[in-house]
């Protein structure tokens, strides 16, 4: 559990970090909270020759209301997200998701930007970011661009980030009225990552019927995956135990299922449905206020 030799470069600004990334190319890795990268380095699964520490860049940790968007800086820790009143008010799912990640030490160090950039298929935050249809602001040698969360996650540990790019901000559009959200996960008993997790957002009409649903499954598949069949089955329905259970039973459709000693494909598929049912019911309850 001793990492290979590397050179350490503290970056003092985003520009400097990007310049360093351009300079060292494939030999370099950004270091944020370090809670995914350093364990990987200790196991020598990653052996970057250069570590560019973005953790000391000022002004990248914030939660700001900007009109109809809440902007969250890439370096914002889970602990900050967990305690944010603003987030709790608009997107109960986000603090809820942050609160079930690791333990207090992990939550004090791990960042939202690091989590989505790492794109671990068993991680919690990518599902939440996707379910809330966030936009991800990215800076690179060619300037800034914005990627929709739905387009950001491409596969296991794979994102739409181009070489030399880094995530600077995650922008959450404010939800319409009568919207509720929730996150549930079945934790792997060893790592406490998700064997299956579900981030659900539902909006209800004046008559109580579901007008919009966003449901994303984590852990069970090779990447955080939108459960379109579940969403389709929810819209137009009154959300009760029966309708939600029926809709949730489609949770594993379209998932490329994973399998390990903590859960077979079959189990993960079933747990995706269970977690979806629970998350949607909770989200609906919150939508009703």
């Amino acid at each position, binding site marked *: 559990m001793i990492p290979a030799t590397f050179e350490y470069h503290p970056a003092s600004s985003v520009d400097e970090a990007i310049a360093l990334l351009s300079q060292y190319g494939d030999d370099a890795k950004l270091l944020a909270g370090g809670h995914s990268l350093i364990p990987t380095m200790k196991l020598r699964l990653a052996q970057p020759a250069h570590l560019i520490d973005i953790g000391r860049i000022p002004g990248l940790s914030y939660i700001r209301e900007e009109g109809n968007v809440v902007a969250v800086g890439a370096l914002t820790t889970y602990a900050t997200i967990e305690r944010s009143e603003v987030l709790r008010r608009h997107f109960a799912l986000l603090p809820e998701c942050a609160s079930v990640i690791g333990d207090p030490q992990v939550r004090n160090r791990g960042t939202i930007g690091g989590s989505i950039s790492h794109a671990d298929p068993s991680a919690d935050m990518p599902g939440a970011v996707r379910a809330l249809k966030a936009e991800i602001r990215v800076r690179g040698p060619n300037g800034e661009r914005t990627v929709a969360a739905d387009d950001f996650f491409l596969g296991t540990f794979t994102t739409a980030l181009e070489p030399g790019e880094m995530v600077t901000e995650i922008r959450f559009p404010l939800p319409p009225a009568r919207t509720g959200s929730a996150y549930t996960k079945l934790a*792997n008993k*060893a790592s406490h990552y998700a064997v299956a997790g579900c981030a659900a957002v539902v909006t209800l009409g004046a008559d109580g019927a579901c007008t919009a649903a966003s449901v994303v499954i984590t852990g069970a598949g090779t990447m955080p995956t939108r459960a379109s069949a579940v969403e389709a089955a929810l819209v137009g329905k009154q959300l009760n135990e029966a309708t939600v259970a029926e809709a949730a039973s489609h949770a594993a459709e379209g998932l490329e299922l994973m399998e390990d000693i*903590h*859960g077979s494909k079959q*189990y993960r598929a079933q747990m995706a449905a269970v977690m979806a049912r629970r998350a949607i019911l909770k989200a609906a309850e919150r939508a009703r206020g």
Partner: protein
Amino acid sequence: MGIAALVGTPIKRREDPRLITGQATYVDDIKLPGMLYMAVLRSPYGHARIRSINTEAAKQAPGVVAVYTAQDLKGVVGNIPVAAPLPPHITNGMGRRGPLAEGKVRFYGDPVAVVIAESRYGARDALDLIEVDYEPLPAVVDPEKAAQPDAPLLYEEFGTNVAASVRPPTDEIDRVFAETQANGGIVVKQRMVNQRLAPSPMETRGVVAEFRKADRTLTIWSSSQIPHLLRNYLAEQLGLPQHQVRVIVPEVGGGFGCKLNIYPEEALAAFAAMKTGHPVKWIEDRSENLAVTIHGRDQINYVEVAATREGKITGLKVHVVSDLGAYLQFFTDVIAIAFTLPMICGCYDIPVAYGSCDIVFTNKAPTDAYRGAGRPEAAYIAERAVDLVAHALGKDPAEVRMINFVKPEQFPHKMATGTVYDSGNYQLALEKAMQLIGYQQLRAEQAQKRAQGKLMGIGISSYVEICGIGPKGLTPFGLYESARVRVDQSGDVLIYTGASPHGQGEETTFAQIAADEFGIPIERVLVLHGDTDSTPEGRGTYGSRTTAVGGTAVYNAVQKLKEKMKQIAAHMLEASPADVTLEDGKFSVAGAPQKAVTFAEVAAAANFSNTLPPGIEPGLETTVFFEPEACTFPFGTHICVVEIDKDTGEVHLRRYVAVDDCGRQLNPLLVAGQIHGGIVQGVGQALFEGVVYDENGQLLTSTFMDYAMPLASELPPFELDHTVTPTPYNPLGVKGVGEAGTIAATPAVAGAVADALGLPHVDIPFTPERIWRIIQQQQAQPQA
């Protein structure tokens, strides 16, 4: 007896302030000038032939001082020690190994070469430069498959993987089973898997070795439970006289049995220090710890139990398949034979018991003593057997226990296994636990929940274990314990124990014993341990033996000094020694309390010597060895309640009650601490833990991302109570408590889960998917 007695009071541990303020010294805190660092190259295969090893590139790497392979150790360093080799194969060398693999690797993590370098990082980097040409061989990881004639062989020259097979004649048990059935009784059979566990102490292993060439003295700092045994065996391995080897055990961050061993790295670090002339340090990392430090349990048990319709057990037949792993560590070969089979009857007066056993090599890490060491398996067998009978007869498991307990008036009691239990009151402990948890109300609640389709279960574990080892003949080296006690001229007391406490708290309890007996404040007593140069020959700390054996040695040493002090006091008081009593730290003459000298005055007189009576030696110091005549048998009943999430298969432990009897309690706070930690480890086995290899012998649980340790957040508060049944076999009346919780907890949770599911038996660990599958099956084919 002295003033406010300390023994029996819940005083806080004296060792804690240094531990919780970061002032304790662990092996990794030892830093010596010129120190080099060792890293170990390990097999990535479960089974492979080593065609060649090329160390040239590694030797050239910056900062590398040396690289060693088995070739360098040949004829210089002896084999890893084994305490009690069993005939015929093991005495003929089966399962024995040198510190580095030669010719073949036999498990994932098998050490192949070491790098000695100026930094820990440099040593680790150079490992990647060693080229080993392996020819992978078929591996066998299942002990039952390994016992088959066509299995890949770990030791070809023996023609089998079965190291030993114990098969007594079955006539008597067969007769009992037939008779029971003829009389309308039942015979229930069950195969049970007691899975492999990784002990996982918070501090991994570590060694520092320093060799002074001028006088050829070797000093070893090791995170060990057995300083003297380590010194003795290491001296033999290295061909050094014992008195030129000194072992220092600094603070140890948990052992749980896995440090009751002599590992390759101790000899390797010593060899490297002797060759290079520099001190050498090796600190095990967590993945190494999970891969190569001994594992525990890993037995398959075939249990058959016969009982009358009323629930009286008439016979128990057990066959144990014990997975040794690839090599023998210190007690690997005797765990099942010496600790499981003799205890299979548990607390139950079973007229006829039969035990057989195969111990088998596989391509996995060696197994050995892990908290409980063979007794958790025995308790699991006995408790599951009683539950099987209860389930088959539709009786309450508490009732079946009551019917079968050995009764208080039967002690000392010889069990059908031949084991003689010292004392006990099993019924009382069960009754107390049932009352504490509200057993009848829980059963009523369970019936209600069942009607609503909810899964709730109650599990009982009435365990008994064997402690206080031990009497003569258990090992070739004797399992006594020692104490050297000195009263200095100011009246302060120093106790050097041969035991090696590493978290159990004997720095506190041994001081309590001495302070009480001398009638002085505990602050005047200091307990020292863990340095073979200052402590008398001892056997170390494991098997819940330290207080029963080492504590008695302290007690006896104190008695001896008290006698001498009485003689001196009598001389000072111009009285007869027979008339002198020691109370409240004062020696006085019976009937004339005003005529007194203090403890300190007598200590001063003894040490200054000028006023001593003729025939009395100066000084107040004595060394005492204590070897018990027999073992002790702590017991108790644990009851727990579980609820199962039907959707996910997750088991939620809702309540946990423990009533334990460890004989006299010297310090209830420390007893509770031991019980708490023990329960957590036992629950860990039932719910979470398990070492997993794939069929090629690849370790799938090589980090805590995959090996599931229990967390505080997953456990309820434990509700503790106790009964007190002293042992007659030592003057303190203490039995032992270090392993009780672990032994008791696993069957309690296992019983509760089987009860919740309405099944006779479910194999541990109760991972959510395993339970979920059972529920799915039950829902698919509803029972009549």
